[in-house]
């Protein structure tokens, strides 16, 4: 196991958290409760079933996409700009609706979900973006704390979780800096901390290294890898060939909205 002692500490929590939600769905409950154990009953964590999405009637973003992503997987979404990678991430996060097809997350069909349930879905999905989306008038600490505060987590939890997660991402010394005082890589670490502080089942990353130099990118990938090893499923859209080739994880390649390749331990270009 390559996870350090510190990460071990984080690992206990997702498992406990998942047990709590498992009660009404025995199939996913089994999958969630024993994250490293495969089971015949287990449903995939994310299931895209013949998903089609078009914009303004004729721009095809996704066309008949099918994919199952298991608990604990690390998946790269690759393909040229406009191939539908971001759209796919948006649909899983329910920022948009597919025109046809269904999407299941943790055993639930999210298309049938009522509007007021959507925030609770999103609490199980962390998001990392190319442009970080940090709040410029809040410090590193406040940015991460804000994410917990607005979902109503108690103060004591915030006071212990936020320093711990910032320690994990290597920013323990910069709690009270503002985003503009940090390098791009550090800002992205803050946004990863914010995405992960609530122990989501899934982390969606849309070109997280798109604004970073190669060396900094490697650091961010190490971080995402560590998070993945705690049991969190990571789905990352990227253009970065070097990263995909060096990680050797599952690669789903999109072109013109279609899946043209889905390969385990894949490379950037099939």
């Amino acid at each position, binding site marked *: 196991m390559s996870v350090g002692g510190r990460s071990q500490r984080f690992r206990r929590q997702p498992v406990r958290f998942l047990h709590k939600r498992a009660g009404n769905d025995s199939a996913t409950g089994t999958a969630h409760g024993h994250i490293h154990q495969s089971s015949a009953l287990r449903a995939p964590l994310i299931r895209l079933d013949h998903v089609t999405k078009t914009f303004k009637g004729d721009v095809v973003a996704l066309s008949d996409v099918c994919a199952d992503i298991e608990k604990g997987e690390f998946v790269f979404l690759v393909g040229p700009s406009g191939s539908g990678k971001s759209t796919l991430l948006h649909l899983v996060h329910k920022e948009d609706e597919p025109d046809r097809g269904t999407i299941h997350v943790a055993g639930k069909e999210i298309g049938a979900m009522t509007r007021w349930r959507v925030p609770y879905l999103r609490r199980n999905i962390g*998001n990392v973006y190319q442009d970080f989306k940090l*709040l410029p008038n809040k410090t590193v600490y406040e940015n991460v704390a804000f994410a917990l505060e607005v*979902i*109503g987590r108690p103060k004591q939890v915030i006071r212990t979780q936020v320093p711990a997660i910032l320690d994990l991402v290597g920013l323990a010394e910069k709690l009270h800096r503002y985003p503009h005082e940090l390098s791009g890589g550090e800002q992205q670490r803050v946004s990863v901390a*914010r995405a992960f502080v609530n122990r989501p089942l899934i982390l969606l990353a849309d070109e997280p290294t798109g604004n970073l130099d190669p060396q900094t990118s490697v650091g961010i990938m190490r971080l995402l890898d560590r998070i993945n090893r705690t049991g969190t499923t990571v789905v990352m859209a990227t253009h970065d060939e070097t990263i995909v080739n060096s990680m050797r994880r599952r690669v789903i390649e999109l072109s013109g909205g279609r899946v043209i390749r889905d390969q385990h331990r894949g490379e950037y270009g099939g």
Partner: protein
Amino acid sequence: MALNAEYIARETFLNLRRNVLMTVASVLTVAVTLVLVGTTLLMRQAVGNATQQWKGGIEFAVWLQPDASEAEAEAVAAELTSSPLVDEVQFVSQQEAFEEFKDLFRGSPDMVAAVNPEVLPPSYRVVPADPDDTEGIDALGQRFHGRPGIYEVTFAKDAADAIISRTGVIQGVVLVAALGLTFSATVLILNTIALAIHARRREIEVMKLVGATNWFIRVPLMLEGMVQGMAGAVVASGGVWALRNWVSSLVENNDFWGQFSVSDGGLTLTVVMVLAMGAGIGTLGSAIAVRRSLNV
């Protein structure tokens, strides 16, 4: 998940401070609006008080001298009840007249103290069979003029005409102005909240991303609108209170206008309505703003 009270209080206050000028504009508009609304309400009460003797279809009253003899009173009663034009005659004794007087001058204890039942005239209030037969009613009433034991005869038509001619136009103008201003106050609050939403669009975006519930995003913004509405209403309540006291002091010694004075109870009712309306305008304005610019 319960909404965190401290978070909401802090956000509401911060927003109000961030848009000080817009907030002041909204509060003042609400205040002016509600002063007008309050004035309309007070005027309606005043007119109600002034026409109190004429409720229930009474068209004229025959007032006896306070020292009229029983025979004189009975003669009037007999003549009224035997007339085919009359549907109902109500006798108001000196004691009842005193109660009416006390009610009318609730706001002026000095006046109530200066009067006792013996000096007030008892009266017969007459409900005619056909209220549209103004000529018949007039002729019947006039018959009692100048008879022994009779103080005077008053007609609802005269009182109502006088009251309506003197207050109707004012009431209409104030009501129209109040309606127009209610609309602008709502729009101003809407605009303030829309600005607050724009200023906080990054925060709101992040809140949506990390799964804050819609109510968690909405509540501080709606409270902000409500606080603005309430603040305006508090200012307006002070205005309405001062206005009523000023008008009361002007008219208390005037025979005609004195009838219009509004009691403390009536004033309290008006203030409560003004406060409720302020909260309503504020919440409505912010609800529309949140709906239109938040998409949650």
